[in-house]
């Protein structure tokens, strides 16, 4: 698998394969130049070493010299090609958004139906992991006015998608240690996100007491546990999904803010929010709340591409190209995507795992930690600086809906 990193305030798109090729070409140019220099130092002469030896050695020097300059040029052009690749991708995205805007959701729905039919016709049936389906869903999300749709849905009888007040309670005896070393990278962050499971805590809060007296916080949010349209006890439900994507005050987000406050966080204290799926909606809402100082935001498979995050936040978004959930958040602004977007095809799908599963995102996070991409290296440094290499005080929290 090869991860692809884009954005982060830059228009460049680079992949690990491109970086590897650039490194190899630089090494090749240096080594060819070194051999050239060694041949020149020999000081071969026709009268001392023989004419043929001089001619052949000069030929070798010429070829190696050309190899050196061509390898240098190819490495430089590779960087330009990477930029052009990113620009072309954004232009294609802009065209799709334009199409959605001009022709409306009807066309996109037709496109979706055609893709779904093609999926269903495949041996083994539909897998809903088609990149074309993901692209069409993203275009559909772009073409819909979600707040208007949500308002319409909430007027329907039956209480579907209606928000409720929430409450939180600390959960003890989960088997999770109340003290932990700070996360060293994306893999540690991904591993600490609580699993989405009925009755289990949805939030993990870590407090770091820095030597200068400052307190820093990391909050990890689980994904959706309840897919019913009518809200039950768990705020990590479909209602919070839809309300959150529509930019409303989702129950899960309110529960996360309550958990932070109950853990001792004071408004203004720095928080790094991390989440998977709906947890990403929660994390993004915290980062954009204006209540926290957030240097870093990390989301996995989250439908939040359309949310504008404050410019001082390093916004690391991890999306599997065959995961439909991030597509439901629509597209970022095409020409200036401020996110540090990491994409790859979901690992593990050949073994039957869903492209949206956290297990696949954990593997991608491990690849991100192994990456030498400067932006990912910087983000990891930002994370370790944030925790100050201190031990965390860990608490687990569960939110519940209460009747309004």
């Amino acid at each position, binding site marked *: 698998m*090869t991860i692809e990193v884009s954005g982060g305030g830059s228009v460049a798109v680079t*992949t690990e*394969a*491109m970086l*590897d*090729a650039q490194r*190899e*070409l630089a*090494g*090749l140019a240096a*080594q*060819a130049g*070194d*051999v050239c220099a*060694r*041949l020149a130092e*020999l000081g*071969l002469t026709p009268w*001392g*070493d*023989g004419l*043929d*030896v001089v001619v*052949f*050695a000069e*030929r*070798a020097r010429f*070829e*190696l010299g*050309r*190899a050196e300059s*061509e*390898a240098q040029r*190819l490495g430089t052009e*590779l960087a330009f*090609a*990477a930029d*052009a*690749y990113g620009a072309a991708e954004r232009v294609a995205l802009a065209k799709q958004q334009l199409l959605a805007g001009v022709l409306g959701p009807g066309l996109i729905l037709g496109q979706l139906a055609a893709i779904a039919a093609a999926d269903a016709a495949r041996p083994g049936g539909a897998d809903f992991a088609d990149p074309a389906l993901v692209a069409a869903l993203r275009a559909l999300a772009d073409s819909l006015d979600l707040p208007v749709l949500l308002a319409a849905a909430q007027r329907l009888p039956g209480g579907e998608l209606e928000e409720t007040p929430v409450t939180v309670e600390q959960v003890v005896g989960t088997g999770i240690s109340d003290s932990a070393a700070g996360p060293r990278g994306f893999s540690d962050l991904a591993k600490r996100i609580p699993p989405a499971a009925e009755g289990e805590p949805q939030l993990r809060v870590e407090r770091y007491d820095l030597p200068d007296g400052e307190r820093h916080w990391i909050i990890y949010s689980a994904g959706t546990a309840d897919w019913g349209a009518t809200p039950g006890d768990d705020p990590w439900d479909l209602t919070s999904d839809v309300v959150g994507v529509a930019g409303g005050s989702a129950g899960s987000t309110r529960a996360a803010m309550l958990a932070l406050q109950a853990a001792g966080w004071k408004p203004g204290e720095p928080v790094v929010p991390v989440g998977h799926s709906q947890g990403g909606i929660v994390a993004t809402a915290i980062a954009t709340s204006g209540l926290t100082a957030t240097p870093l935001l990390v989301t996995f498979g989250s439908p939040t591409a359309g949310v504008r995050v404050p410019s001082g936040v390093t916004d690391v978004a991890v999306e599997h190209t065959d995961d439909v959930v991030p597509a439901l958040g629509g597209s970022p602004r095409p020409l200036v995507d401020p996110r540090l977007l990491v994409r790859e095809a979901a690992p593990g799908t050949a073994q039957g795992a869903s492209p949206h599963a956290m297990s696949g995102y954990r593997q991608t996070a491990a690849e991100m930690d192994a990456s030498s991409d400067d932006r990912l290296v910087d983000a990891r440094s930002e994370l370790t600086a944030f925790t100050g290499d201190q031990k965390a005080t860990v608490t687990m929290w569960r939110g519940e809906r209460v009747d309004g």
Partner: protein
Amino acid sequence: MTISSSDEAQLRHSTVRTALQSAEASCWGLYLLLPDEQPWHGLASGAFRLRVAALRERVDAASAALNAAEAAL
């Protein structure tokens, strides 16, 4: 100890041979540094493949010339 001109010629001959052999061995390292020609960036991959193939030909030619130089010693 006295070094005769024939000894000097032999020493020079040996130095040049060793240097040419070492240069040729370095060419094998260059092959290892040629990037994979896999199609990892779409339409540009065809052009990239050709450029890498041209680099490989340069290394081939250098290696052959070094062989020929050593044979001509």
